């Protein structure tokens, strides 16, 4: 379950950002992906209420909106954890051992790519090439590209990241 403050209620002020982008595109259905981008940026993920709201405003069947939201890798229907760690699986990263890095992370934190840890602190994702191949093998720590030397180093970096925000 997402934390209660991320569930938008109909009069959520954050929804106005989504409404504004729809208005800017004159409620054109072609702009659906643009609208979903803004919605995800605003709320962190796309929940049912938001999808239903967008479908209504753009006069699209809810199934179409849901279909688009689930087709593209970038969109997520679940709230991500506090920190997001991505292990790039591009070609250069693969030959330099990204598979082992991902396995080590999955083993250490007990979740597989695409999941969030039980305490909601860490989400692990495995994007296909972030286009920064000279840093291979690389991990993304909250969006920042970092070159790692070994699976153990990657795990240590995440542990460090998690310890930062921990209540003392």
């Amino acid at each position, binding site marked *: 379950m997402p934390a209660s403050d991320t569930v938008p209620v109909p009069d959520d002020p954050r929804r106005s950002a989504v409404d504004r982008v729809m208005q800017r595109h004159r409620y054109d259905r072609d702009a659906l992906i643009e609208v979903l981008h803004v919605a995800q940026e605003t709320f962190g993920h796309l929940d049912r209420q938001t999808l239903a709201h967008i479908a209504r405003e753009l006069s699209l069947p809810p199934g179409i909106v849901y279909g688009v939201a689930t*087709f*593209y890798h970038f969109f997520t229907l679940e709230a991500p954890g506090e920190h997001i760690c991505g292990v790039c699986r591009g070609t250069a990263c693969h030959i330099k051992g990204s598979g082992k890095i991902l396995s080590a992370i999955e083993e250490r934190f007990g979740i597989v790519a695409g999941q969030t840890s039980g305490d909601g602190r860490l989400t692990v994702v495995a994007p296909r090439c972030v*286009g920064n191949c000279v840093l291979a093998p690389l991990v993304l720590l909250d969006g920042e590209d*970092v070159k790692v030397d070994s699976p153990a180093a990657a795990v240590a970096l995440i542990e460090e990241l998690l310890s930062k925000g921990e209540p003392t």
Partner: protein
Amino acid sequence: MNASDLEKLALHEAGRERRYCLRISICMGSPCMAAGAAAVKTAIEELIDRHGAAADIRVVGTGCVGPCSRGPILLVVTRDGTEYRYERVTPPAAAALVDRFLNGDVAPTERLLPADLPFFTGQTRLVLANCGYTDPERIEDYIARGGYQSLSRAIHHLSPEAVCEEVTRSGLRGRGGAGYPTGVKWELVRKASGSRKYVVANGDEGDPGAYMDRTIMEADPHRVLEGMALAGFAVGAEQGYIYVRGEYPLAAARLRQAIQTAERLQLLGGRILESRVNFRIDLRMGAGAFVCGEETALLASVMGRRGHPVTRPPYPAQRGLRGCPTLINNVETFATIPTIIRYGWEEFASVGGPGNSGTKVFAICGDLVNAGLVEVPLGTTLRQIVEEIGGGVTGGAFKAAQTGGPSGGCIPAGHLDTPMDYEQLKALGSIMGSGGLIVMNDQRCMVDVARFFIGFCQDESCGKCVPCRAGTVQMGLLLDRICSGLASACDLEQLEELCHLLQETSLCGLGSAAPNPVLSTLRHFRDEYEAHVMDHCCPAAVCNMAATEAACQP
């Protein structure tokens, strides 16, 4: 703004540039940023402020300078035009460097990259000509270097037919991978009936290991926009879309800003340069789907739908966006157009070889000394790229170079002297692709590489047609068996059969090209497959053979 205002602005800006006694460029490409380029820029700016020399020195955050693995890169240009490139600069080192330039000392040699480094001398930069020199967020920088002059010339002095003709005669071929003659495509759209036409730039660079388009969009957004506007003029379209991969937010932001400024200066939008030509460009963000690189899937995505491809014909040139004739070209193709119109087709065709004119940008990475972005004439040999420009292989001897991403293949050491052009690569079972070139040393397992690509296609299959959706899964299972040493000769046979089935029956390019990495590795490295199957052993000791009893003897 009209044509003469544009020229005046260009002259004014160029004059301003000449007055600086020192121009310092800091590469702000993603790899350099990750290496700390932003802090380097701040350190330099602080130093210049302390010296009170801000009026005489220009500090620019630019697009990719090239040797990304040596970042952050600093480029210093003195008043006489001499260029000094420094590698791996840290904020204190950068401050010390600039300090010495300010004091009029001899140029420091520490961290200096030699001017005759093959990485630089081996390149011909047409598309990347501005990378390292201009501020991507300042349209004036682009104009000072001749930007939008091609558009102005075309609109005022050329007919749409003449522009198409120029592109056709230049011999430019699609830089997205397939190599279809660009001029022929333009001509088709120009002649297509219908009052509404569209121009779409494909910036959905999905190949893993490729980041040329990202760099072009981030470093020189106006070049792409000018190319699109020229296309719009040539084919008779008044609306363009640039489709940017969802993973590239910086490229999208730069392009949005560039579109706005260009519109403000009347270089895009209504009545361009006070002529009767209109051309608007809207940006569309992708959201992570490799299949959207396929043109019909891309059009569906531009219209906000799921990226499902449809059968061709009709081709987008006949029936594309909203049923109207649509010209789709890759970002790099559009970025090449201003150069062709500006210098003429003869000049462009003189670079490269017959049937393969011009240059191609490659993202070279993997087991290589100098990884980064390079632009070379088509027909440059793989050996030149790997050994001279790339500085040689690290961690072992050269084994293979992978081109064309999941639709391409591997080129083995025996073919290092192959000229990199569309036909030669195809003959070797690979493709040019968008330009990713991953070099692998002899510690890498080619079966594992094939399995990696099939896994990729499996994830990215849109699921519309069965051969691709189910075939890639079956191929993946077979490759898993091979890589764990559990496969039999019969599995290998079945794998080959599936390859041909996918090639012949898939709906779109994703499925029909998915077997290429397997077929090309089977062709050039069959002995490795056989070692996995017959001897239950991975010669490169990459695959985990724990499942079999046979001991691995690399």
